[in-house]
């Protein structure tokens, strides 16, 4: 897989001398911090997908809207690409820089502008950390619902760009369900407000379109989010299973009983072991799989639901069911799950985290497929799922220092995503396509669908200057690398040049 921007496949970029762009921007936006020395650029060469690194031409760290506007206007005029970055915690390389591009870092926009407890809204700048919003709302008994695992570090601007999820999505939705309004600067530097503090806005739902658009349609400069009353109580049940498929079926049984848990997570044996070794969460090491089921809401309802879920789990063949006795034990149960990635990281020099989604009923079949791929490749795979909403995070263990293992891990990852697509799912549930899954987009979407995405992009950024090479592949890339299958020896898109 060729992860780095390839002009032959991803489209030509305007070539400008670094000194020319630097001088131009320094003159146009004199008071903005602009990094240009290699040692200053180095820290920005990757985001959370650290296996891929590119040194940007320049890094801009604006502090005012006027600076962002000035930067965009000049880049538009010069034809220089702009990659926007928040906290840099993204896992799909959505903020991977371009050699010929400016990296626009929004981290200095870190103010919570307003928390309105009566309207239950918070107005924040894009560089504010996800968790900081809930902390600011806490004195009013309110919180911001989406909670990606990186919530202590990730910024809300990046959450909007990726339409970030978390462990509570099934009940409380993704970022798109919790954002009321965004302020955006277009590549031409024009300001737009999309959405509103009211529950809808006239015209097309461009707010929905902006969520998850990976910085390809505009630069988000301010966000208004919805706050929810903190549930009165949350209780968590941990169920052990001697068989992964039984655990998978139990997930469906809970939903079938009419219960929408606040969180419903599953881990397999390898992930259990990793987490237990790391945080001593009290997980059963003899289990093939565990389910963590959190029920939240009004105390009396939660107690009723806990009884129902317990009965369902027993009927589904759980070998042990444990309810966290107190808040401390509940936190411990979750600590194992929330630290599953770093825990797996301790077992192996490197791991590669996938993010496919599937209809839940396909879980046993996809798990078997993953096990087969693991065996065939010789790479271990630990499975962690947001089981309630069918979002799988298989973690492929490898050692990048061993010749060919990274490529092998990527190959296994790609095949896992194709399994998800074949099962009627998606290549990404919450991490985004970014640069990482650009080739797999070709297996999820047909060329005509990809062309519609290009048309949407053209409506906002016809010169393709915002984050080029991410999210939507070119048809040339799909023809070259994509998983479009060759039928009867007929190559798809015979009209396209091949390399």
């Amino acid at each position, binding site marked *: 897989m060729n992860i780095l921007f390839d002009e032959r496949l991803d489209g030509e970029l305007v070539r400008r001398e670094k000194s020319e762009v630097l001088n131009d921007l320094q003159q146009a936006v004199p008071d903005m911090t602009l990094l240009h020395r290699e040692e200053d650029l180095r820290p920005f060469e990757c985001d959370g997908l650290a296996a891929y690194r590119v040194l940007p031409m320049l890094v801009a760290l604006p502090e005012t809207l006027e600076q962002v506007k000035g930067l965009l206007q000049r880049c538009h005029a010069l034809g220089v690409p702009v990659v926007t970055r928040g906290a840099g915690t993204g896992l799909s390389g959505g903020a991977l820089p371009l050699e010929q591009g400016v990296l626009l870092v929004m981290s200095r926009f870190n103010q919570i502008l307003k928390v309105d407890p009566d309207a239950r809204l918070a107005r924040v700048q894009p560089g504010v950390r996800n968790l900081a919003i809930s902390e600011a709302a806490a004195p009013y008994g309110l919180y911001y619902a989406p909670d990606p695992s990186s919530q202590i570090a990730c910024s809300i601007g990046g959450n909007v760009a990726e339409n970030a999820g978390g462990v509570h999505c099934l009940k409380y939705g993704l970022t*798109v369900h919790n954002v009321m309004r965004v302020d955006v600067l277009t590549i031409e530097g024009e300001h737009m407000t999309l959405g*509103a503090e*009211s529950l809808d806005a006239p015209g097309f*739902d461009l707010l929905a379109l902006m969520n998850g658009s990976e910085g390809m349609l505009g630069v988000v400069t301010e966000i208004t989010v919805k706050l929810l*009353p903190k549930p009165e109580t949350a209780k968590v049940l941990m169920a052990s299973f001697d068989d992964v498929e039984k655990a998978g079926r139990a997930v469906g049984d809970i939903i079938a009983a009419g219960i929408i848990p606040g969180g419903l997570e599953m881990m397999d044996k390898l992930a259990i072991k990793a987490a237990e070794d790391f945080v001593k969460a009290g997980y059963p090491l003899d289990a093939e799989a565990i389910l963590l089921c959190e029920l939240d809401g009004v105390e009396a309802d939660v107690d009723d639901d806990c009884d129902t879920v317990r009965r369902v789990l027993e009927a589904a063949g759980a070998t042990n069911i444990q309810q966290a006795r107190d808040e401390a034990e509940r936190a411990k149960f979750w600590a194992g799950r929330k630290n599953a990635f770093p825990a797996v990281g301790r077992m192996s020099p490197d791991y590669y985290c996938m993010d496919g989604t599937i209809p839940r009923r396909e879980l046993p079949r996809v798990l078997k497929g993953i096990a087969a791929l693991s065996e065939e490749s010789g790479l271990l795979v630990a499975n962690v799922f947001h089981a*309630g909403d069918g979002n799988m995070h298989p973690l492929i263990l490898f050692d990048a220092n061993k010749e060919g293992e990274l490529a092998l891990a990527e190959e296994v990852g790609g095949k896992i995503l194709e399994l998800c697509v074949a099962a009627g799912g998606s290549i990404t*549930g*919450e991490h985004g396509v970014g640069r990482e899954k650009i080739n797999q987009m070709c297996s999820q979407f047909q060329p005509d669908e990809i062309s519609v995405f290009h048309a949407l992009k053209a409506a906002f950024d016809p010169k393709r200057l915002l984050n080029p090479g991410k999210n939507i592949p070119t048809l040339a890339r799909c023809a070259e690398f994509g998983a479009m299958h060759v039928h009867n020896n007929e190559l798809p898109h015979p009209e396209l040049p091949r390399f």
Partner: protein
Amino acid sequence: MTELAMHAADRDIADTLCDQVRSAYETRTPLRIVGGDTRAFYGRPVDGQALTMAEHSGIVSYDPVELVVTVRAGTRLSALQAALADKHQMLAFEPPMFGEASTIGGAVATGLSGPRRPWAGAARDFVLGTRVITQEGKLLRFGGEVMKNVAGYDLSRLMAGAQGTLGVLTDISFKVLPIPNATHSLRLSINLADALKKLAELGRKPLPITAAAWHNGELFLRLEGGNSSVSATQASLGGEPLDASFWTSLRDHTHDFFQLSDGQALWRLSLPPHTSPLALDIPEADIFYDWAGCQRWVKTSLDASTLRAACAAVGGHATCYTPHAQGGAVDPFTPLNTVVEKYHRNLKAELDAHGIFNPGRLYAAF
């Protein structure tokens, strides 16, 4: 397992519809996309050849355990709701139904949501995926049948509320939710100022409220959730019991309030939460507060600019529900800001270059 719920009358006419769109594209013939034709009053009149969706009907797949249903756009809302209710599930956004012929495609295209909207979410929030006929008459699939999917741009949600101006919705996949175990509606005598204050207070607590309206000195509340919380909340709020049909009458505008006098038009004001009563010359009896005050139905002869200025001042907007031909505003939807309009035009030009999809339905210019 997926349950197929095909009825004798259910048909898949997507191929025919694609042919019709292709021919309209070639001949540059504007199309008026029609489902049950019960929502034609909403938006500007469209002058075009009818593209009839009603025959493209039936549930394609429904798996209650997955919480996902996929349905053809021409399926009647009543049929879909009955199929879901049979499995003790529902469309949580409570789509309004302005007549028995009302279809799910129309519900999504108009993007309207009922009384549960502030608590559960809007129509677009439950759309997981769509099949769409493009201007060239190609049937394409966006989104999917899974709860989480961030691959590509969210074209499906863009289609919700676009009123058919960007493409033809043929199939829609929804996230569905269980019908709550317990429900209780009640009415309380309380003046407007106190009611709005009370709603703000209640809103900050994790109570099982799923509808809240105020009219003529009464606050109407619906509680839904577990048996324990609903009965406890009911006991603490008091009030008189209210028949659940009240919410349907509010949702579908069959409540007596929606009878207009001569010279009046019906307006919908969409306002931020916790907005005080607007300083408009409208008798209190002619305003119905829904969505805990975020959606206000107003019967008035005031002109569009007066209403819109008052809404804009507090961050809201106003939509006219009375067609121009019956005395309503020429532009039912609030005009867009210049930059936002530019990108609307760009989008329309990209997805509907010849203006064949419901031209002028939202705004005269596109």
